[in-house]
């Protein structure tokens, strides 16, 4: 079984995303598929509905090595990193039915599980797990969706000179999206296609950048 072969690439990510539309494709022959829209969401649905091991294997094969790298960065050692990977991906297997694609991407869901697992591991190590746990801190996204009205309100502001200096201070990923949308006047969908990131991620980065700019503006006017 060539389960892990897709993770064996050492170079930088290719500049054009590999579009994989058939989720049953042999992963061993494909380039990284992180930018493929909807694949992981479909895989999670199959795991939830029919305990689909093939779908789970795709999720595991892609995310396990990345979670491990993330864990090593966070914990500074491999043993705890692997404990985090195993616990996170066990949650993905057992709780796939809780994933709701209308509320966000599969990658977001998996990231938040890893974050919570890591938090509880650290608390447990301090023997404080029962004091304040991840369940207290991160409600499972059950907030009502807020209206997206502030985006429009800010569009006019963005062409003013006032914001220009703050633009450069945005985190690179947010700045790129903002430049495409506001300077090159691309649609959100076009930016999503160009950068190979989900549409929801484009919208999230715009909202974050707008809030950051507003914060910077507030501070500079004080």
């Amino acid at each position, binding site marked *: *079984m*060539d*389960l*892990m072969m897709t*993770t064996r690439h*050492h170079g*930088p*990510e290719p500049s054009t995303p590999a579009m994989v539309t058939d989720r049953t494709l042999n992963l061993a022959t494909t380039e990284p598929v*992180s930018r493929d829209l909807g694949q992981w969401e479909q895989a999670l649905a199959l795991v939830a509905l029919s*305990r689909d091991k093939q779908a789970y*294997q795709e999720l*595991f*094969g*892609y*995310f*396990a*090595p*990345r*979670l*491990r*790298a*993330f864990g*090593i960065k966070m914990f500074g050692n491999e043993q705890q990193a*692997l404990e985090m990977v*195993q616990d996170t991906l066990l949650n993905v297997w*057992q709780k*796939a*039915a*809780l994933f709701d694609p209308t509320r*966000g*991407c599969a*990658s*977001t869901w*998996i*990231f938040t599980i*890893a*974050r919570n697992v*890591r938090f509880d591991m650290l608390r447990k190590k301090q023997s*404080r797990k*029962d004091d*304040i746990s991840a*369940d*207290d*801190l*991160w*409600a499972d*996204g059950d*907030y*009502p969706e*807020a209206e997206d009205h502030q985006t429009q309100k800010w569009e006019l502001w963005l062409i003013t000179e006032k914001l220009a200096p703050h633009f450069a201070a945005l985190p690179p*990923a*947010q700045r790129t999206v903002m430049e495409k949308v506001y300077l090159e006047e691309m649609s959100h969908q076009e930016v999503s296609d160009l950068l190979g*990131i*989900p549409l929801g*991620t484009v919208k*999230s*980065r715009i909202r*974050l950048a707008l809030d*950051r700019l507003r*914060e910077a503006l507030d501070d500079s006017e004080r």
Partner: protein
Amino acid sequence: MTQSVNHHPSISLLELYCDGSLNAEVALLVATHLDYCPHCQQLRHDIETDLGAQLAASTPASQDLHNADWLEMMNSIVATPQLPFTAVAPAQSVEQLINIGGYQFELPRSLRRVASKRSKWLSMGGIATARLPSGEPHHASLLFIDKHTDVPLHTHQGLEMTLVLAGEMVDENGHYVPGDLIINSPDDTHKPRNISDEPCLCLSVLSAPLQFKEGLTRWLNPLQRFFY
């Protein structure tokens, strides 16, 4: 009368909360703010989406685990039964209502479990405080301020973070309603007051003992212990 939340955590603080690197007590304060604030809920969603996308776009470490080890882990996972949908949410002992000073308050979601583990209320004048489970160097507590009651003027060596849960209060810098987050640095001397006709309940997180500056209270060491 409903008033909207006006005092929010900064984006940087929200980012630390979302990536899980805040200490538990401050994270609890941010989580509780979110219970009141749709604006920051949206930002939380956006930050988590961004972080998730970063995880998905990241590269595995160049020294990856052997295939056989990954396979072993995966096989042990898929051998585990999936939880039935209804059994996924863990049952927890929670406390939705809290009684103090002859009043009853409804607790926000994020405090319901933690508040059930609080220590006994300590009361002094129209003020009462109950410690929540928390560890050094941070102390988290519930703070009750009765109507028309002042909290003695004080400074603090570390950060003092206060979140209004119910009622309202004022200090030299503003007027605060449920959901408002007030952060005071060691340089701030301030005097929170409840000048309204309703009692006020707050969540308070301190990172160092307070020093009182005013009159007699300055010499009352027990008062310091009381607040810390």
